[in-house]
């Protein structure tokens, strides 16, 4: 189906069954919680917790590893650059020229790298467990104007179609002698220009057709559209929401009152 951007794979897991709105709220709270802490142990615990959630969501090991591989370069850069640019604490490990590497900064760098991964895990969790269209629907239910949601939905739905068109255009041009794999990269990039132009013209035509098709389906006929397949909160959703809200309140209370998770090494400072 939606090959390129759709990470969703249906599975019989409780996370899949959750209303997307609950997941979005969870994502927002989780992001805020993560952004408020720099502690190595707290971030490690978060990564562990998210890994557990991924397992509950029955995400295959292959996909998890794929995600890790994606995050690896950035994680390394964060973990290495922090101690270089932000020395802190008193235990100096070594120093060269103007750069001083301290133990605390190293822990801090690692904590930030872990935090990055934890954030990525949360976002991927949402995309792995939620159908694209249901996600768009939930955004509309949360207040996004319908036309924006429709635009987003149609854009997502047309990604594979346009990917296919791109492929066909590339083949059509190659069949005339366009060389795509020769020469320095600048030349190769320029070679894609005919494909891009034909692609844009095709896309403009498609947009024209789509607009007419939408009009033919009476878009805007009634001020209040019905939704044939709509989202409905179940008891599980409410309970999950309440538990999540409670956990968030507890977390932020600890954070703001006791500086929980602020210091890179000590839990409370």
């Amino acid at each position, binding site marked *: 189906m939606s090959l390129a951007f759709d990470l969703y794979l249906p599975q019989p897991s409780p996370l899949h069954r959750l209303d997307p709105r609950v997941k979005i709220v969870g994502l927002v709270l989780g992001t805020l919680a993560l952004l408020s802490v720099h502690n190595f142990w707290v971030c490690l615990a978060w990564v562990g917790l998210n890994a557990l959630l991924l397992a509950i969501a029955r995400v295959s090991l292959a996909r998890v590893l794929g995600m890790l591989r994606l995050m690896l370069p950035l994680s390394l850069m964060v973990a290495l650059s922090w101690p270089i640019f932000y020395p802190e604490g008193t235990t100096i490990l070594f120093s060269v020229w103007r750069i001083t590497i301290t133990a605390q900064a190293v822990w801090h760098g690692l904590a930030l790298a872990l935090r990055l991964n934890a954030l990525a895990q949360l976002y991927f969790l949402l995309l792995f467990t939620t159908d694209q269209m249901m996600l768009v629907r939930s955004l509309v239910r949360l207040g996004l104007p319908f036309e924006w949601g429709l635009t987003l939905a149609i854009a997502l*739905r047309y990604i594979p179609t346009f990917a296919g068109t791109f492929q066909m255009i590339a083949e059509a041009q190659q069949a005339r002698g366009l060389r795509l794999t020769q020469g320095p990269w600048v030349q190769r990039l320029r070679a894609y220009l005919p494909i891009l132009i034909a692609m844009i013209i095709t896309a403009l035509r498609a947009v024209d057709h789509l607009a007419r098709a939408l009009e033919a389906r*009476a878009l805007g006929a009634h001020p209040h559209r019905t939704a044939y397949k709509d989202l409905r909160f179940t008891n599980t959703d409410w309970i999950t929401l309440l538990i999540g809200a409670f956990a968030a309140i507890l977390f932020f209370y600890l954070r703001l009152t006791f500086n929980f998770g602020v210091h890179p090494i000590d839990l409370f400072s």
Partner: protein
Amino acid sequence: MTAALVIENLTYTYPSFEEGSVAAPVLREINLRVRRGEVLGVMGATGAGKSTLCLALAGIVPHSTGGVFGGEVRVAGLNTKTERVADLAQKVGLVFQDPETQLFNMTVEDEVAFGPESLGLPREEIERRITWALSVVRMTDYRSHSPFHLSGGQKQRVALAALLAMRPEILVLDEPTAWLDPLGKREIVATLLELKQTYGLTIVIVEQDAEVLAALVDRIVVLADGQMAYDGSPHAIFARPEQLRALGLDLPQLATLAALFRERQSRAYDFYTLDQARLALASAG
């Protein structure tokens, strides 16, 4: 009033590309009345104005295209100039040529539900309409499929269902079989025949493929250069091969054969379908 569709002195010019230049009218002084339940075929060379006519029946011309619109078009009693396109869409179902770009939902079910949703219908009513529309086009088994992997003929049938779900009085089809393989064409012709015979829907179908028209229509209108050149029964229209060819149009192959018989044996044959030809020739020979 048994006229489903009334066109009076329709003249239309698209807005011009460049500043100061004046475009030529694409439709000129079109006058046409279509009875309820009639199936009208529209023929014409590329650029004759057929697609513009279809858009005019749905109100997309002039509401979305601008330009200069003269005359009047009334569909199911509604004036296309004063009514909104969204309201006209409830009376006129418009099916386009390209199977790809008139479907924009993730599943067949979503696609057919979209129109009724736009009309604000309650869920039970939408459910009824989806089930009915899919059964008419014989795509019930594909309800939860993604349109992405369907054949061209199947896609066009889904598009038809999506429009039928809004219960239009008139169905307008702009070269629906242009991009279909023979099987797809047969599927569409069969579906339209069923709509004609079982549901008495008024149908206006533009087609290049004369064989498709031959199988379906009660009446044919030929457009040339934006004007109505001929208007008559298929027998009458297909009995003028030279005139159609002068406009760059094709006849059904059997109509060409009938012309050959008329010419060489002075027999007044005017068949254009297989059944008609069999009847005529079997009884004679």
